[in-house]
Each structure stands twice: as C-alpha cells, then as structure tokens.
C-alpha cells in the first residue's frame, strides 16, 4: 500500500512538473492578488502591517482551492480505469492525491508567505511555529480539495463548483491558521488552534479514506 501511495504521489508531482500549473500560473496569480490589495485599501503602512497575515490566509485558501483543482490533479477516465484494473485501492489514490496537493500547497504558501513579508512587513514574534501551522493548514485544504475534486469529478462544472464545495467547510482551517498567526503576533497561546487544525486534519483524512470506495462505484 505504501508503495502504491509513493508511486502515485510521484506521478502526481511529475504531472505537475510537466504542466507547471502551480508554479507558473497559480503562484504568480496569488502574488498579483497580494500586490493589488494595497491599491484597494490604500497605502497605509500600519494598516497593511495589521492585515498582511489575514491577506496571506485568504489568498492561501482561495488560491489553494485552485491548486487542489488543477487540471493535472484530475485523473482521466482511462487512467482511473487502469488503476482500478491494477487493483489500486481508491483510498490509496485519495491519500496520494492529497499528499501531492499538500506538498504543492506548502510550496505555494512558502512563496506567497515570502511575498507577504516583503509587501506587508507583518510582525511575527515566534516564526518557528509557522513550520507547524502552515503544513497543517495546507494538509487540511488539500484534503478538502481532494474530496471535493473526487465528488465533482467528471463534471463540466467542476472548476466552478469545487470552490463552493471547499471554501465553506474549510472555515475551521482558515480560522485556526489566521488566529494562530494573530496569537503569535500578540504573544498569546496558540495551542488550541494547533489542536483544532490537527483534529480537522484527522477528521478529513478519515472522511477521505472511508468515502473513497463508495465514490468509485459505478
């Protein structure tokens, strides 16, 4: 099973490397989003300092949804049939797709995080915690996005429908990530937000694995 996950995970990353959707399209798009916000709210440096982390999380959630719904993430029907004939468990496919999306999202988060630091100059007291908060958040968004992608798979409206499926149920992820960084900024405890992120990730992982097989039946 681990071998299947690893093989599919690498295949997803190879697909992304060939397509270049995340690094060549979504990362520049997210950067532009961070760049235009000050043009909408005004060039008020203390205000931008305050809203910078919030902008980071909003861009991560909204553009993260695009990362999880990228064209290279959706297996074609023939590829899916082939994997089914080879005896690859649908749960394995979910895990591999979610892992690949989580890794790509983490890369996306690192890039837009750096852009946020440059453009907004937010104050973070203990940045070491970000090494736990960001991957946990990315894993959560990746799993919600992968489940939504599977549920809406094969539909012509997939790209417009999936964000509506993902964003409302990703509210705890957004709140936990945003409140944890706010806690770091204010020097407050953030353990309950880390706990919430961990619980959300576990629930989503279980939901994704347990519902993978019913989704496959036809």
């Amino acid at each position, binding site marked *: 099973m681990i071998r299947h996950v690893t093989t599919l995970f690498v295949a997803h990353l190879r697909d992304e490397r060939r397509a270049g959707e995340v690094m060549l399209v979504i990362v520049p798009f997210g950067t532009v989003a961070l760049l235009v916000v000050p043009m909408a709210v005004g060039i008020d440096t203390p205000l931008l300092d305050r809203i910078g982390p919030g902008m980071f999380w909003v861009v991560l959630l909204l553009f993260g949804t695009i990362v999880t719904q990228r064209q290279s993430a959706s297996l074609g029907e023939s590829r899916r049939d082939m994997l089914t004939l080879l005896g690859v468990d649908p749960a394995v496919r979910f895990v591999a797709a979610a892992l690949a999306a989580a890794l790509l999202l983490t890369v996306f988060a690192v890039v837009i995080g750096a852009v946020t630091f440059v453009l907004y100059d937010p104050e973070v007291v203990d940045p070491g915690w970000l090494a736990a908060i960001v991957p946990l958040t990315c894993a959560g968004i990746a799993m919600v996005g992968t489940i939504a992608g599977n549920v809406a798979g094969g539909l012509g409206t997939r790209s417009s*429908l999936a964000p509506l*499926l993902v*964003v409302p*149920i990703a509210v*705890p992820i957004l709140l*936990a990530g945003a409140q944890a960084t706010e806690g770091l900024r204010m020097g407050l405890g953030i353990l309950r937000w880390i706990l*919430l992120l961990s*619980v959300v990730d576990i629930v989503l992982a279980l939901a994704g694995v347990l519902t993978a097989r019913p989704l496959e*039946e036809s």
Partner: protein
Amino acid sequence: MIRPLEIAAGLMLATALVLGLVVPPDAVQGDLQRIMYVHVPSAWLAYLSFAATLVAGVAYLKTRRMRWDHIAGASAEVGVLFTGLALVTGSIWGKPVWGVWWTWDARLVLTAVMFFVYLGYLALRRSFDDPETRARRAAVYGIVAVAQIPLVHFSVVWWRGLHQPPTLLRPGDPQIDGPLLAALLAAVFAFTVVYAALVSRRAEIARLEDLLAAPSADETVAGSGVSAPPIVRDTR
C-alpha cells in the same frame, strides 16, 4: 391532492402565528421580540434538516434505495429555505437591538456557513443527470460537510461570541415567561410539522422527476434514422 399532513401543518402554522401575535409583548424588547416566533423555529429546523440529510445520505449508502436520496435532497432544500429565513429574521431583529444588520458572532457565522455548505450540496446535486451518481456523490459530500459542522462550531466559538446564551434550553429553569414559552413551543412544533409536510411532498416530486427522466422500455433510443431490421422467416 392535499394530504392530511399538509392540512395539519397549515392549521398548526395559523394557530402558532395567532398565538405569537396575541401573547403579551416582551418586558424589555416589546413587540420586536415577536420575530423570535419565526426566528427560533427556523434556526431549529436548519439544524434538524441538515441532520436529516446526513442520516438519509448514510441510509442511501447502506441500502442504495433511491427513496433515501430523495429525502436527503428534499431535506437539504427545505433546510436551505429555513436557514435563509433564520438569517434574515435574525438580521431584522439585530438591527434595532444590536444596532447592526450583521455582526461577527459565532452562531451567526456558523449559520451562514451552513447555508453556503448546503447551497454547494444542492449545486452538486443539480450537476448530475444520472440519479445514482448524484445520490452517491451527494451522500458522500453531505457526510463530509456535516462532519465539519461541529468543528466549524468550535472554531467560531473560540473565535468570538456575542449571541445570547440559550434561553429555552438553559440548565435549570428556562428564562422565559409562561405564555411566551407556550407561543414559542407552539411555533417550533408547527414549523416542524410544516417541515415534514414540505419534505414529504418534495421527496415525492423528486421520485416522479426521476421516473420521468428514466428511459421507458419502448422508447426509441437511436432516433428515426435507424429502423428495425426486417424479420426474415426461415422457410426451410
């Protein structure tokens, strides 16, 4: 044809509305509080209908009977209606009491999130032509969405809170006067019967829609361009 459940729902709703208008006004909020006779039952039905969608979704995955899918879809549709009603009536009440149409309170945010989760659920259902694919995928999304609702609840409660604590379900004695409590309970009961009547009718319509969409046995599937081959009798 009007069913007995629908007649009962209409009568109970009328009684509840009359009760809500004739009971004395609230000591502090005056007549403004009467909106609670619509707001509280709507909010209760929002939770009930989404719980019913979850149960029906699980039942569909277990039994694969389309009836459960029809109930899940009907319950979500009615739930969206009542969630919207709870949001609108809460907003109308909030403006004179809190001074704003909307505030970033935990329960308000949770209700709005539920509203959008189930708008997504309904959009997903509308996207499929094949009833079985629709039923299976909607059931899975419904389960994942409902599993997230308690987490959304905790996240927004930890975030901030302004909404008043429970009045009716407070441990000990309810902080509400007798006649007002009677009117509120009558409204909750009447709305619940209305919910049952609406879900029952909508599920029946969904069943008939599926029946209408299914190809019948004698239907021409290849169009008029293809004719049946001639029957050649073996005369040997």
